[in-house]
């Protein structure tokens, strides 16, 4: 008995030690960039982990300097991500509701098409989209970016959303139909309220997309005052990596914090969303 208890203590102690090491590894980079953003000076190198002095200068510089229009970029990104999230969620819901609840001729074809299209590398379509937007004189506008993100949304989200909608019992629909509800009524009054967790998950992923995408944003948005934060950060790192690292840190913190807060609130939903995708494939 004593041997077994000792064994358990050793096992647990070892586990805790490993967990602590892993936690440090997980938190260290985040903490490091946070501290770097408060460090005076500009360089990447610092003698000590904990800065000797704290300063807010980098944050104020981001918003006041004429070179970095960070406030403007921030507003742009917010606008683009909210708009494309709203349209994208609606489009995804429409698609997944239709393929989950109705049986029609082209249904299997539609599902396979969505699947196959998802396998092309996204920016393979880059040049064509660029030319298409040029045709419609939409280059360097936020509208173009919103359209591109929202139009692509059903491709990524339909399967997860469909998997979720499939789990809502169809007897509910039928009961409502007997009570005289139209298709639209069923969608609005039964499906929408019941799929709130899935909608939240989708909204979150589609909101985050524009914050971190710089491929399309860099292609479409040409003038500096139209940039999103992602393009701005990418440009900052690429054009002057070691010369102004602390400023980059401050910007990084400003981008990461809202998204991390959202993730914190929605942690449970995320787990559900991921596992729903997993068991359904």
């Amino acid at each position, binding site marked *: 008995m004593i041997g077994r208890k000792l064994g358990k203590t050793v*096992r*647990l102690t070892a*586990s*805790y030690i490993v*967990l602590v090491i892993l936690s440090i590894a*997980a*938190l260290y*980079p*985040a903490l*490091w960039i946070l501290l770097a953003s408060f460090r005076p000076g500009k360089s*990447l190198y610092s003698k000590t*982990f904990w800065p000797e002095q704290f300063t807010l200068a980098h944050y104020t510089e981001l918003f006041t300097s004429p070179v970095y229009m960070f406030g403007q970029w921030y507003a742009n990104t917010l606008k683009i991500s909210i708009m494309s999230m709203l349209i994208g969620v609606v489009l*995804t819901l*429409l*698609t997944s509701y*239709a*393929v989950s*609840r109705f049986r*029609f001729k082209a249904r299997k074809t*539609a*599902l396979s098409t969505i699947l196959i*299209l*998802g*396998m092309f*590398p996204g*920016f*393979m*379509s*880059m*040049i*064509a*989209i660029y*030319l*298409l937007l040029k*045709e419609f004189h939409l280059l360097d506008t936020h509208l173009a970016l919103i*359209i591109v993100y*929202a*139009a692509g949304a059903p491709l990524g989200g339909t399967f997860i959303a469909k998997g979720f909608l*499939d789990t809502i019992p169809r007897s509910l629909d039928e009961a409502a139909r007997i009570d005289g509800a*139209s298709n*639209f009524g069923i969608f609005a009054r039964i499906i929408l309220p019941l799929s709130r967790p899935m909608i939240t998950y989708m909204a979150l992923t589609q909101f*985050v997309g524009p914050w*971190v995408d710089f*491929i399309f944003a860099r292609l479409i948005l040409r003038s500096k005052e139209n940039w999103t934060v*992602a393009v701005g*950060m990418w440009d900052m790192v690429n054009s002057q990596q*070691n010369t102004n690292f602390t400023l*980059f840190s401050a910007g*990084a913190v400003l*981008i*990461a914090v809202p*998204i991390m807060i959202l*993730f914190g609130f929605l942690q449970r939903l*995320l*787990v*559900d969303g*991921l596992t729903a995708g*997993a*068991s359904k*494939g």
Partner: protein
Amino acid sequence: MQRHRTRAAILSTIFMGLGQIYNRQFIKGLIFIAAEALAVYYFIQNLGRALWGIVTLGETPSHLEKVKGVSKMVQGDHSIFILIQSLITILVLIIFLAAWYMNIRDAYKIGAEREAGHQANSFKQTVRYIMDYKFAQTFLILPTVGILFFTIMPIIFMIMLAFTNYSAPGHMPPAKLVDWVGFETFRSLLVLKSWSHTFYGVLTWTIIWAVLSTATTYFGGLLVALLVSQQGIRFKGIWRAILIVPYAVPQLISLLLMRNLFNGQFGPINQYLGYFGLDGLPWLTDPFWAKVTVIVVNMWVGIPVSMLLIMGVLTTIPRDMYEAAEVDGASAYQKFRIVTLPMILFSTAPTLIAQFAGNINNFNAIFLLTGGSPVNGDYQYAGSTDLLVTWLYKLTLDQNKYNMASAIGIIIFIIVASFSLYNYRRTKSFKEEDMIQ
């Protein structure tokens, strides 16, 4: 008595909507007529040029012309604009033909109804019918149009580019024309020494990368998940919350940050190694170490996702399976091997294959971290850590070798598609989806 249906169908073939009016569906008929009038107007202006464009890709390059004794640059045909305009027109034509076909079928069906003595639906009734029985199709129109123009059309366009010679420096419009060249591009990519050497090198690394990165994150995630959900570990929620922090940080930020942390000269990692009296490593500048770095960093980014996933699966394993194993006298290791592992592998297999396919296309991890560097002198425009996708990106944006990039894109698609289709066919949710309810 086939008169109504044949007459309505023929009238609708002559001009959309006539058959509907013949069937006394006036509003519907007028809408259809307006649609065809618009379409005809559009096609008269565009169709001829579109067909000419897609066959020839333009005939006159920009050239100098003498105007009143002074040489002047004259704008020629821009092959690529012509190609995309033609493509759009042909897509619209296909949509129109489909609508036309449906209009004839509709006239025929309603004609038949009338012969059977039924009244044709009034406009109100038609709307009602669509909302009740054609709801799904109506719902899908908007997403379909979006996907058609922003996904399908661009993909067709890129596939077409692979069969042209659209590349710098020889064939860049507007100065020069672009021509169809058939499989020439694929031939140079796969057989011609200068390109094929790079292609096979990058392909090999792409596959090594996909295998290693998927395996490390998956089994890493499995280990961490088991560690946290062990019996006797306290504060599980807190550990979990800490360990998913890397997942919550946007990749754009974390990867750009890692690039700085691993900086060979000023980066803190080498600084700390220095404290232990060790020489710093050339993390991002040596071909071998750069590959190690991207895999390690990818573990940091990817393990939390696998961990979350596997933790979710762990909670779904029924307790009585463990109890049964205990009754049979299984040790902790045996319980893991016989119950836990098969259950996890079984329910995460689709995700595993999806992750593998995703890693082949993992643009962010490579592009943000190393940008494909260090440069490899033997390669055509590719570095040692470049994947096929990042190579494609560079060929497109930096080198303007559009035809090569498109050919590579098609090859990537074939690789990824074969894995995903295999995966998809064996997932239950597709085969048995109607059995769930």
